[in-house]
């Protein structure tokens, strides 16, 4: 146990971990060039280990390195160090770094990111993930608000290479079996010129495509089977770019099943009132664009302007003006406005941690400076005394 303590408290471990972080940052940045930002983040930073193509772990990933670094900072920086006034600055710096790492962990575990895309006059109380998918099931009705069963991304994205998973709920009269999740694919009428990935259903199959560098450009696909209590099976392809959900009838009830990007509810509704785009003179390149929106919360309506570097921060969400479209050359509108939406409980924590670190640095270096000045004064006084 003593050895373990010494190991976690050691400068050696800190150096190794910092070198690992350096390597992850360097190779993650290089990896991004060919594979895009999302893939690089997932492989190098949002992982416990880096794996070879055959699945063997060969290097610690960002989560493992930063977790060990946090332990190292706690054990070595707070427990082993002498708690004396002269170490106050160093202790506060360590606390600040730990706080920063914890804020990263909170963001990794508990944040939601996506976009809200609206044409003028449209409104929405949910935003859509850029990267994650979900399968939603609901009973078809004319009701304005409909209860849905949700199968989240973590239960879908591992269903590759023929792997199946069945889903049931006590209120659902059928079992849904999902399989063959494809990160990027195109649904096409099956012809002789290509091999479909998985079963061909109703003349259509999935053409597997290589993942796009920009992950949000990928279009996922899934094979789905609905099995009722009598064992009757209905099959379909679920494609993230389908224009209508798959509808099935079971026991006289009609259900819709859809694969789509994950939708996150917002605590209020945003309505786009006006989108304004200013172009550089003589070009079609946007110089600036902004959105006049209304934040609706019950009967309370508040007009808000969202533009570059002026996001809306409210209800635990941050809405940034991200882009607009369509971008077809010569297109004169109407345009839609795209807001990047982030729900991150630790949104401001890195800023706070920087203030803590700054305070610690001022304390540590200020103390050293004052000691230096004091020693210089003493030396000068001593020299003056000797001359006198």
């Amino acid at each position, binding site marked *: *146990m*003593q050895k373990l*303590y010494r190991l976690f408290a050691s400068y050696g471990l800190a150096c190794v971990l910092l070198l690992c972080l350096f390597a992850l940052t360097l190779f993650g940045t290089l990896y991004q060039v060919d594979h895009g930002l999302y893939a690089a983040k997932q492989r190098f930073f949002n*992982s*416990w280990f880096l794996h070879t193509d055959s699945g063997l772990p060969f290097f610690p990933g960002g*989560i*493992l390195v930063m977790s060990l670094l946090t332990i190292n900072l706690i054990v070595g920086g*707070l*427990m082993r160090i002498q*708690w004396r*006034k002269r170490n*106050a600055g160093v202790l506060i710096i360590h606390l600040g770094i730990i706080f920063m790492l914890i804020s990263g962990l909170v963001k990794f575990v508990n944040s939601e990111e996506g976009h809200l895309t609206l044409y003028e006059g449209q409104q*929405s*109380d949910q935003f859509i993930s850029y990267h994650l998918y979900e399968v939603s099931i*609901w009973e078809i009705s004319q009701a304005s*608000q*409909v*209860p*849905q*069963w*949700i*199968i*989240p991304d973590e*239960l879908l994205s*591992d269903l590759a290479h023929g792997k199946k*998973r*069945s*889903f*049931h*709920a*006590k209120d659902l009269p059928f079992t849904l079996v999902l399989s063959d999740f494809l990160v990027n694919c195109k*649904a096409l*009428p099956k*012809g*002789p*010129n*290509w091999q479909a990935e998985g079963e061909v*259903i*109703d*003349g259509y199959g999935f053409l597997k495509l290589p993942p796009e560098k920009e992950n949000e450009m990928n279009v996922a696909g899934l094979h789905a089977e609905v099995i009722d209590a009598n064992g009757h099976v209905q099959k*379909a*392809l679920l494609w993230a770019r389908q*224009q*209508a*959900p*798959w*509808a099935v009838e079971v026991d006289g009830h*009609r259900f*819709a099943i859809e694969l789509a990007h994950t939708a996150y509810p917002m605590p209020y509704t945003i309505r786009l009132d006006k989108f304004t785009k200013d172009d550089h003179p003589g070009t*079609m*390149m946007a110089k600036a664009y902004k959105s006049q929106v209304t934040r609706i919360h019950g009967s309370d309506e508040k007009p808000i302007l969202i533009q570059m570097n002026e996001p809306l921060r409210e209800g635990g969400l941050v809405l940034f003006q991200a882009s*607009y*479209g*369509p*971008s*077809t*050359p*010569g*297109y004169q509108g109407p345009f839609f406005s795209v807001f990047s939406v982030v729900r991150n409980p630790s949104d401001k924590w890195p800023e706070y941690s920087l203030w803590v670190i700054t305070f610690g640095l001022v304390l540590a270096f200020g*103390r050293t400076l004052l000691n230096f000045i004091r020693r210089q004064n003493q030396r000068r006084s001593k020299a003056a005394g000797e001359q006198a």
Partner: protein
Amino acid sequence: MFFGSGDARIADLWVLNNRAMRAFRTKFTSASVGSGISPAVLALLSLLVCAGCGHPGRDVEITQRRISSNIPRNARVGMSTAERFGQSPMGAPRQQMESTAVDDSLHFELPKGWKELAPTSMRLLNLQPAGNADASCYVSVLGGDGGGLAANLNRWRKQMGLEPATEEELAALPKVNLFGGEATLIELRGSFAGMDGSAQSGWGLLGAVASTPQATLFVKMTAPVEILEQEHDAFLDFLDSLQFGQHGEHQHQAQAAPDNGEESAPAMDGAGAEKITQNGYRFQLPAGWTDAGPKTMRTLNFRVGKETECYLVVLSGDGGGTAANLNRWQAQMGLEPLSEEEIAALPRVPMLHKQAPLLLAEGDYVGMGGTPSMDMALLGVALELGDHALFLKMVGPDKEVASQRTAFISFLASLEEVQ
């Protein structure tokens, strides 16, 4: 000095913490009492080791529920996959022997058991013989001679794993009726190599090629040999039934007989309309095209359909060169640049009494706005004329561009420079 007499409470806390830490450190570093802290460390290590190991089971209960008002309202039991994927605007497959039309210009009789699929950017008509997913039959058109009969025959022979045909074999090919004229019938057996490069043995190809000075029409069926033989007669009947519009026969005769000296465009709704002169160019405006007004750099600027645009840019000199511009368009569609050989192999279309390379690129278009538009197609033609160069480009949703392909070639054929 930082926690001096000015704030005794902070100093007290500091001392307390210092003592506690010292005691904790002493306890922890003592081997005899190390067991007191070990559960915490072990738990932490266990967390590190196991955090990434949790896998959901094969059978999962759905526990996540939500109430939503933003749901698609177009779910309908019985909707076909093609309809759900928005690839069958015409609805369910056509009934047997029903007289049908594509884009109001192509009429045919669908053989028994065949299915009509959504057209693609390269295929005016896309069919599935015998309802078999491995079989395919389509009609496509290329401007000019489309590379010539020999080149296309040998391309198909190569797809079937066969050696190029000799001139004698070429001359001996049988002729069939197509669009009221004569077409060369090609029948091959071999190992079919599709787009993914995998060769499948025991396959056959039935094709017909009809060339006119303005355009070349291709009808091609590929299928396993047994299906090909079973559908052989149906294919010939299908060829015989193909015609353009209500005046298709007349149009085909006009294209097939250029010796009458008339400049005629391929079969188009706009054919026969008066030519328009604008900014030094005279042309026939195809049906459904409208003037989109002046725009920087654009000599001619049209809006086509709902979201497609087509415009002519005229630059001095070589305008940067044909290859550079074709590859710039490739890049806009997110595609790799073409090699010199690939550019040389592009189909040629008639333009200003010359033959210009026609580029068809499909992908996600990134224009000057920087935001990509999905499922787009680009048709582009570059022509160098010594002191100036012309670049005609059509860009829009792939289905809309596919439906305007013939109109694009027709427009090119009608284009004249006015002195």
